[in-house]
């Protein structure tokens, strides 16, 4: 049940904050240097990092639980033990992917 709620919550977050942020980024790039720098000043603020790290986690959590839905759609993975292990494992996997991506970013550029 928790994994299902997480799927919905991360989906809603991505749909609103993620999609608006993406369009803002693209629009700013299309509008010119000044608009883009304004976007970057927000993105590189503490709030910006919290939002972007949060979105990264939300995306991978949603992706992984989405893949779980694909498996369940095919009629597989309903055995209690299998179902339970995946639903416990996926949140850890999503956090691990997020950590790897942001470790890459913080140790290289920007």
């Amino acid at each position: 049940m928790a994994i299902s709620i997480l799927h919905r919550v991360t989906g809603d977050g991505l749909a609103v904050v993620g999609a608006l942020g993406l369009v803002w980024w693209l629009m700013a790039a299309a509008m010119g240097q000044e608009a883009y720098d304004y976007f970057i000043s927000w993105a590189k603020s503490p709030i910006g990092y919290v939002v972007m790290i949060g979105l990264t986690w939300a995306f991978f959590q949603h992706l992984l639980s989405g893949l779980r839905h694909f498996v369940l759609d095919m009629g597989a993975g309903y055995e209690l033990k299998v179902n339970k292990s995946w639903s416990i494992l996926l949140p850890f996997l999503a956090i691990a992917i997020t950590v790897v991506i942001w470790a890459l970013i913080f140790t290289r550029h920007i």
Partner: protein
Amino acid sequence: MGTGTGIGRVRGLGSAKSGAHHWLVQRYTAVGNLLLVVWLIISLLKLSGLDYGSVTAWIANPLVALPLILMLVSIFWHLRLGLQVLMEDYVHDDGLKFFCTLLLNFYALGGAAAGAFAVAKIAFTGGAA
């Protein structure tokens, strides 16, 4: 059509014939999002910088602009279907539901159009100008 229970009123009418379409498109766009957003994340990690010049030069490449536009369509279509389900679960008043559907459609179409237009503008004007 009786006036009894909900199930009594709809029994024998058959399905609305469009439920499976919603379900299927949600899955098609899910696969689209998976491929295209993962591509975006990897591409951004590989870019030398995320400053104005690097980003617009990158978007100006047709092999970047096209998948970006496809990604926007896939994302906004998927989120429209997802938020519709959310709304159907929690908004029960007919008038309010109409209003929410209106807002959702404006948001999904407007967002996809804005993003796609921005990418097209950068692509057609050749990036940093």
